[in-house]
């Protein structure tokens, strides 16, 4: 008999015993998104990667960036 196997499109859940795992969830997953940023479709895919925005290293050395905001200025 042909049978579909669940894909955990509804994400992570550890609230219930394994034999009662809520439908379409998994108790074991990491770095999986329900949304494919490549083509904007709801499907199970690896999460998007981190991409540098600016070439500059804020603070000039390996120290955490702790605050950000923006300011709007008239031209």
């Amino acid at each position: 008999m042909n049978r579909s196997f669940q894909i955990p499109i509804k994400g992570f859940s550890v609230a219930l015993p394994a034999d009662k795992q809520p439908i379409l969830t998994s108790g074991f997953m990491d770095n999986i998104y329900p949304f494919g940023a490549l083509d904007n479709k709801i499907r199970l895919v690896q999460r998007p990667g981190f991409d540098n925005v600016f070439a500059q290293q804020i603070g000039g050395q390996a120290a955490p960036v702790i605050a950000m905001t923006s300011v709007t200025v008239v031209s």
Partner: protein
Amino acid sequence: MASTLRQNYATGDDTAGVVYGNAWRAQSFTVVADHSIDQVDLYLQKVLAPTGNLILEIFAVDDAYKPTGSALATKTIACSAIPAGPGWVAFVLDASYASSAGIKYAIVIRGPVGDGSNHISWRTDANSSPGYTTGNSITSANAGVVWTLIAANDSLFKEYGDFSVDSVTPVDKTYSRKLVTIANNELWYESAPDTMSELAAAKNDIDVTEPLTIVEAFQKVFIANGTNLKVIDFINTKLTIAALTTAPTRGSTVTQSTGATMIVDFVKTDKTEIYGYTTSGTFDTTGTLSGGSMDPEDKVPSVVNQASTTPHWYDWTVYPGGSAGTMPTSAYLVALYRARVILAGHPSYPHMWYMPKVADPYNWLYSTAPLDAVNGNSPTVSGQVGDIIRTIIVYGDDFLIFGCANSIQILTGDPQSGGSIDEASDKTGIFSFTSWTRDEDGNLYFFGNHGIYLMAGGRSNPVNITKNVIPNFATDWAVNPLTHRVVLAYDAENRGIVIVKTVLADGTCSGYFYSLDTQGFYPISFGNTADGIYCAFDYNADDPTYRKLLFGCADGYIRKFLGTNKNDDVGDASSTEPILSYFTTIEPLSQDSDKKGKLTSLTIEMSGGGTGGAFADSDGCSYATYVANDAETVLERSQALVAWATGTTYAVGDLVTYSSIEYICIVAHTADDSGPPNEEPDTNTTDWEPATFSTGALTGVGRKNRIRDKIRAAWLAIKFFNSTVSETFGINKIFGDVKEVGKIKGK
């Protein structure tokens, strides 16, 4: 086919412009915006029966505005094809001509064989007033050898070309946005699109080892960093002078003898610096200053600095003069509410909030008058918040949330005009000033006492959205504000909330993505501590390229999630970290809990359809299958979380990972990486056996992968995973052929 009507004159027909033999006619016109001329229509009348062809040409004009040089474009029409008219006749040019703005050209027609009774007449408006103001009718009696301008005459014409805006292009944008960020006791700002530069004056004037919050207001950024209350000014002109006795009144006009004027915004406490918005002229170091009741009126600036060159950096203090009250001496929280730049988080008065005068962050003279400064001791509101304030969340000018240690308080309205403070929850507080976010519908999400909470619209009862899926969320996380940073951020592009915790000491970062589409939680982690997240900001940049949710990371770089990135950038992006991704699905192979099933084949559809088509193509991934007689055993076999380590004593049944493969201990022993008999699991078949039933790799997109392992078990777990650099994967569907077989025997 003509595109857009450009230059034309189509009225006042009252004269014949006769064309035959050596009698040529022309009409000059001036192009307003660059475009390709591809058609010309002329208002013509065919008088009786001229023969031959009518030739239309476009020429440049000389200094006398007469046709000159060779034809730039042309079109020939047989006289027999021209209607009697008068009417418009279209000449679609043999080839378009690229005309230039501001240049005058001439349309010339010639060629028919005829006479005074048989000719083509180019209908003309004689004595046109004002007529076509940037050209006029021209005639030649000797086949173009000599041209004569006919003043106040314009022949009717229409010229067509590709679309462009003829008039001055409007500009709607009158402002620019700049990102401001802090790391390593330094402040950096976006000095040019996509370039961050350090503001040297701020170096070591802030202390990142202390809590720090920042907010934009009045074209400045205000910083609350304990006793370091600072302002970065992006708009004013700064005049450095010898000390005044009396500062000019805030909001008054100061004039320099050179003619420059400014509206005063702030004066430094010692009255040696005036900051104001220049309204006319340019301040310099030669003229004396006066106005605004300043005393004396004889100061000449020694230095003039423009914020447009380098932003100003100064202490946030009260306006000098003695009538602006007293600021709190320390604060860690700053926010903008109803045009008041408010402070809270004074370490000695943690329940207190302070608000300056409306639209005047330098006036802290508390009173009961509307618009004046107010604080938690004011009689006009319900007083201090009875809990330690950890964060301030502003909802426009409607209400403000004080996220406290053990409660949530809401200030509604203006505190000086009927505002009130009410408790929204006494069941949870908010962890910190970075541990909350709002989605675009105004719903508030925060990390509270027992997990992640949702307050719909920011005003409803907080609801714990993790308790039914991750019941031990808070205890599992075990975070401490002294050692961890918790960051929540709304990701509009991926339609969800990013929820992470980062170990302050080393940047180790993990958490969840909460999808607003599925309302599910998806664990996330980063393989390199350089990517640890310490803050987030949804940047509405001028350039759409930078209009993203930005993350401030452990190594000093600012990053964003990018769908086309299959790795995580590390450092300056010269190196990358593969994303370790996996998920496990478990299935009973029989509907009878006491029977096994037999799986004869498994088909996996990878995302992407055909390679290179409309849908995003999945790269390959690995898979592993596990079997057991019960669900929890099969799940445990698929998620051995402990790496094999030499020197560890293992018992029968212990699970470890080694080289991404799970192993189960079958003989108790103490591991020893120096060699047999207790060496690594991949070669030590005495002490270990793979916890997997089978492993393999999936490649190709669409329905191209079929696993033909013959599996007999009660429960099956399948793990799909990727740890390969520059690869990603997506799975659409999994299905298999299963039939029930015998009972589960023994244990």
